[in-house]
């Protein structure tokens, strides 16, 4: 299973499609293909139907939240320093916009090979969170995409039944996002640490204000 070969095969067969091969530095060696949203369904259908690939079994669908972050990069730049052109290392900071990424892990029941990971990213995390749904290609994505919609807020276009899966319908947050602030119910935390401790103490002082004099009763 050569991912490079698969990549070029798909690019040859799906017109206009450009894939990115995302290397995985870990010992698992599970590299992945990144596709753009517009060709995703075509790529998926090809992966599923191509005679030599037959990735008919979409095992796992995952969302990953990448918040906006600054990446500092050391770049060697040729610069005129004191009149002499020199190669100077410079720290260049680039602000990467946050994205929501969706990863599909595919296997083939027929050929008994896999996995191959297929990735897609949204444009950002706020407004442009649409991705094409691959449920029409693999039915197994149905509930998992709903879960990602629920917990990450990725909107899958073309999903037959995109509702919240785990939280109640009136819930407005996407709790698996990194910037989610969980509800504050730290009234009683006898073994609190760190952040929890801080919030518990805050609750405690509020309670003290409400019931002065009761403190230390127990």
């Amino acid at each position, binding site marked *: 299973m050569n991912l490079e070969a698969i990549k070029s095969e798909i690019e040859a067969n799906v017109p206009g499609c450009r894939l990115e091969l995302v290397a995985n530095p*870990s*010992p698992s060696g599970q590299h992945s293909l990144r596709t753009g949203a517009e060709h995703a369904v075509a790529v998926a259908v090809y992966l599923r139907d191509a005679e030599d690939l037959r990735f008919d079994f979409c*095992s796992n669908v995952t969302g*990953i939240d990448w918040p906006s972050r600054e990446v500092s990069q050391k770049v060697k730049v040729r610069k005129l320093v004191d009149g002499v052109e020199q190669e100077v290392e410079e720290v260049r900071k680039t602000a990467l916009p946050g994205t929501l990424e969706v990863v599909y892990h595919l296997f083939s029941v027929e050929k008994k090979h896999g*996995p191959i990971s297929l990735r897609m990213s949204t444009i950002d995390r706020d407004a442009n969170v649409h991705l094409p749904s691959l449920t029409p290609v*693999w039915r*197994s994505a149905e509930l998992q995409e709903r879960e990602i919609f629920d917990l990450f807020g990725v909107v899958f276009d073309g999903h037959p*039944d995109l509702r919240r899966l785990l939280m*109640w319908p009136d819930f407005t947050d996407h709790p698996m996002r990194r910037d989610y602030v969980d509800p504050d119910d730290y009234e009683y935390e006898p073994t609190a640490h760190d952040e929890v401790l801080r919030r518990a103490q805050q609750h405690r002082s509020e309670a003290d204000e409400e019931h002065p004099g009761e403190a230390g009763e127990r």
Partner: protein
Amino acid sequence: MSTATHPTAHFDLQPTDGPGKEQLLELSMGPQHPSTHGVFRMKVVLDGERVVRLKPVFGYLHRNHEKIAESETYLGSMPYTDRLDYMCSITNNWAYALAVEKLAGIQVPERAEYLRVITGELTRLQNHACLIGFLMQDMGSSGTPLMYAFREREKILDLFESLTGARMMCNYMRFGGCRVDLPAGWLDQAKKVVADFPRFLDEYEQLLVSNEILMDRTQDVGVLSRELAVSAGISGPMARASGVDYDIRKVDRYSIYDRFTFRVPLGSHGDVYDRFMVRLLEMRESVSILEQAMRDIPSGPIVDPKMKIRGFRPKPGEAYGRIEAPKGELGFYLVSDGSPNPYRYRVRPPSLINLTVLEDLCVGRNVADIVAILGSIDIVLGEVDR
């Protein structure tokens, strides 16, 4: 009739009218229902007793396993995995350990692999036995098969307890091996339990397999086609009952499963009876694996000596590891950013994905069939909702 009083007006998807244009009854089965195996809920639209629509509602046991795991250390998540599929904690441990081992490139000593296989297959035995018991309970047999299954399960849990210290939440695997070695006499005790197990299976078969009521209630009920099974990502015994020849123990040859001879039973109808029978037959195969493993188990270390218990930080990267858990393909997807906590921690729960086809199986059937179908899918809510 105004829409407000129409019983289906509140339904998420407008149901179709019944054939005779009778009113449809929208019923909520669960979360507190004797046969939803926990807090599962199905919104059912009934035409008489026939199911017109069925929408599963999840999340009543959504306890944020993935979110919590992302703020725990890698090891800290291990006891949490016990509580995913709480019937089979050891296989959950195993899948997680396998994923982390892939992520960090850790080798597992041979004895540890044997221990994993032994405990894992014991887990499979008790899970399948109990599942069949629960299925029969759902079909109204006042608990007798379940009692027999739990009688056997208690024996296996005794083994687990004397090995790992806990009956259900074993927390047994460690990255690169297992936590403790077998105590003295454990293997003999286990051999006895395994040797006795076929007798229980015989008893079960006597009690159930040729029972006409059971056959009539389960055969051709909830038929899942092979194509749908593959497309919907159905795995485990449920897929094999539909004729999908896909057993990860054979396909991935993870751990040391290629050393054992065992067969994979396949169904040809894909109905509830096949799912029930495939599990029954799988138990016999598990017994055979166990016998081989307990015969061949070598001595040696049980954990990779390079592994430290604290301060484990895999290099950045990602890995997807999966095993054939009793309920199907249990996978863990981990993304590491080099910190002690996983950046992304994802469980691929077989129970949840096997539920994808629930509506397809139930529509057009009877209310009583819903519970049989649901029972045969074998869900555990801890894993469905996580």
